[in-house]
């Protein structure tokens, strides 16, 4: 039986916990307590988790963090469970969701119905709606409960009540944690929420050492930095941490943030100040077959490699030469996985830091610029890729296509700020390409509305250190407006502001600095009126 787990790693030690057994379609499989169901299945060589609704195309592990719905399976009798955020339990029974539509789909596809037709099909007259819906659900694979529902406790389903706090931090990455540390140290009552099972955001996946100033993060490995910050937070009794909790709504008039807790219970939080540090989403690329299992985002590969210690495949290619792609290539080299090449359309230069590019190339991984992907090959999973050379105007050079054999393709072409929660606060949003996408106008104290602050990648796509500094600053400004803290607040604000300026002093940040200056205003309340 295949086992894709990594047992020896030059940097990491994987504490997987107790070995347990799970069952896929009654076949026993080795799993560990600390693994999610999807990770355990992947480690056992399963690449196809589900099928798409209309065209029955194979779907596999993609985002690994509960954002996409490619990994939905039937777990212990409950259909449509996102296996990538469900932890393994001994004796768990997992089933691939099979539908009659698997056999019908070739005929349905021939009819070429637009999605709107599907929606309206068999909804009128009214009395046929319910029975027709049952049939349609059966056909499309949205799942029907075939067995008795497992019993839910009523407390799990209902509202857990309302919490009051001074400072609510949404997102426990470097920015959110630093804000909690700075404000928490000065006696502000804080709730920090994160939708993962632990704090740390993307820091938990970073095994490389960071740049920047030695005073903050330089020279430390990202995951160690995360552990240190979590330890610091646990020393503060006034900081309450809610993990596995998603912030899903904001009601400005009632000043309430709505949370979803495990088991679908809701929780209301009313706070005086809010900090949104939700980070970013990965961008993707458009090419033929980019939905095949085996095409991953850089974050998904990092999760597999550095959180669960599982090889994404044996031989891969990377798309993009930004810092994220270059770092993932280095993580793959460290895990002993062959990287066939890092391909990118860049013409002027390798987009990431030069030292990152040099470090992967000296280990034999070529960076091939002025190329792009045409299509991924394979029927059920990736077996290769067709690449092409580019003309300076980004059109394909005719006849230059060639095949690269690989069993996974990793896309690392940049990030978009995760602005969906920011928007609920009714800020003034602008689209700034230098900052990664839609970002709110903010003032010098990082406020984007009267009582909401922003920090980290969701305000501008940068790196972990600047996110930490921004978070620290936002935390300090919030402390000051809450009339907490002492004279040390101002000194610390000066220190962080100076450090942030220095960090953005490199030629890499020229565009970014100008863009931030442009969207920073004196008084945020005037802009909003």
């Amino acid at each position, binding site marked *: 039986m295949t086992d894709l787990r990594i047992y*020896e*790693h*030059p*940097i990491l030690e994987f504490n997987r916990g107790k070995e347990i057994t799970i069952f896929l379609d009654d076949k026993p499989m080795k799993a560990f307590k600390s693994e999610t169901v999807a990770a355990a299945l992947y480690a056992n060589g399963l690449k196809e988790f589900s099928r798409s609704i209309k065209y029955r195309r194979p779907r596999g592990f993609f985002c690994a963090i509960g954002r996409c719905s490619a990994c939905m399976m039937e777990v212990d009798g409950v259909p449509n469970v996102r296996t990538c955020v469900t932890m393994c339990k001994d004796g768990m029974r997992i089933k691939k969701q099979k539908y009659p539509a698997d056999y019908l789909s070739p005929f349905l596809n021939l009819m070429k119905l637009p999605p709107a037709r599907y929606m309206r099909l068999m909804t009128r007259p009214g009395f046929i709606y319910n029975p027709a819906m049952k049939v349609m659900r059966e056909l499309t694979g949205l799942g029907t409960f075939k067995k008795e529902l497992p019993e839910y406790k009523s407390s799990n389903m209902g509202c857990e009540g309302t919490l009051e706090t001074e400072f609510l931090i949404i997102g426990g990455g470097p920015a959110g944690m630093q804000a909690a540390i700075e404000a928490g140290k000065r006696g502000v009552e804080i709730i920090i929420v994160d939708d993962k099972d632990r704090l740390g955001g993307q820091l938990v996946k970073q095994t*490389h*050492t*960071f*740049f*920047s*100033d*030695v005073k903050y993060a*330089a*020279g*430390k*490995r990202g995951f*160690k930095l995360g552990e*240190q910050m979590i330890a610091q937070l646990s020393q503060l009794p006034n900081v309450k941490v809610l993990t596995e909790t998603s912030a899903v709504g904001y009601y400005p008039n009632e000043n309430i943030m709505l949370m979803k807790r495990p088991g679908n219970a809701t929780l209301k939080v009313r706070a005086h100040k809010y900090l949104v540090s939700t980070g970013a989403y990965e961008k993707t690329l458009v090419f033929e077959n980019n939905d095949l299992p085996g095409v991953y985002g850089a974050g998904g590969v990092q999760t597999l490699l550095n959180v669960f210690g599982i090889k994404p495949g044996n031989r891969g290619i990377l798309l993009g*030469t930004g810092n994220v792609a270059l770092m993932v290539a280095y993580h793959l*080299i*460290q895990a*002993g996985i062959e990287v066939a090449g890092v391909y990118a359309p*860049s*013409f*002027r*230069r*390798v987009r990431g*830091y*030069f*030292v*990152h*590019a*040099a*470090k992967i*190339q*000296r*280990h*034999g*991984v*070529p*960076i*091939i*610029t*002025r*190329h792009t992907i045409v299509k991924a090959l394979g029927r059920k999973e990736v077996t290769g890729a067709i690449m092409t*050379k580019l003309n300076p105007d980004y059109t394909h050079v005719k006849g230059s296509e060639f095949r690269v054999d690989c069993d996974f393709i990793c896309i690392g072409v940049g990030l978009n700020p995760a602005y969906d929660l920011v928007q609920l606060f009714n800020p003034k949003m602008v689209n700034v390409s230098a900052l990664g996408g839609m970002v709110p106008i903010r003032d010098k104290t990082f406020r984007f509305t009267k009582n909401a602050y922003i920090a980290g990648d969701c305000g501008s796509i940068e790196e972990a*250190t600047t996110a930490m500094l921004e978070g620290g600053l936002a935390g300090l400004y919030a402390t000051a407006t809450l009339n907490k803290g002492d004279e040390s607040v101002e000194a610390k604000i000066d220190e962080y502001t100076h450090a942030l300026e*220095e*960090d*953005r*002093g*490199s*030629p*890499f940040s020229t565009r970014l600095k100008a863009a931030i200056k442009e969207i920073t205003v004196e008084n945020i309340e005037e802009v909003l009126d």
Partner: protein
Amino acid sequence: MSNEELNAMQRGFHRKDELEDLNVFPSRDKLMEKRVALIECVEEIPCNPCGVVCRVNAIDKENLCTLGKIDWDKCTGCTMCVAVCPGLSIFLQSMKNGKGYVTMPYELLPAPKVGMRVRLRDRSGKFVGEGRIVNPTYQARGDAYPRWVVTVEMDDPELSYEVRAIQVLEE
């Protein structure tokens, strides 16, 4: 596609002659005399561990983003900067008794041991020869920069200008 027509920034690595133009290497006499550090960091990025860690103040960093300049008269070849550089772009080089020596950071498996035979790679990843590990040390200061720093010996001293990575051969 050949990379010949690309410059270093488009390629993502340097050739020896390009680094010579950037004054990365000390004089040959200096390399014969003692082991010294070379900073192959050519880009202004916000980073300063090398300047902070140097005990003899041989590395001059004006501020966070300026490039580190090294004073080879002061440098003692202590390997601290090699271990600390987050970009893995500082190396030590020397030539002695007709042999070349390069000290480099190493973050791969298997763990290096004295006497292990290694294949030598140049900056582009090409194999250029074989060598031996003479001095592997594991440097760590608490959680900060834990990594192996490995010195390899090669028979051709000229190779020490090229070799920047190794692959350990199975014993």
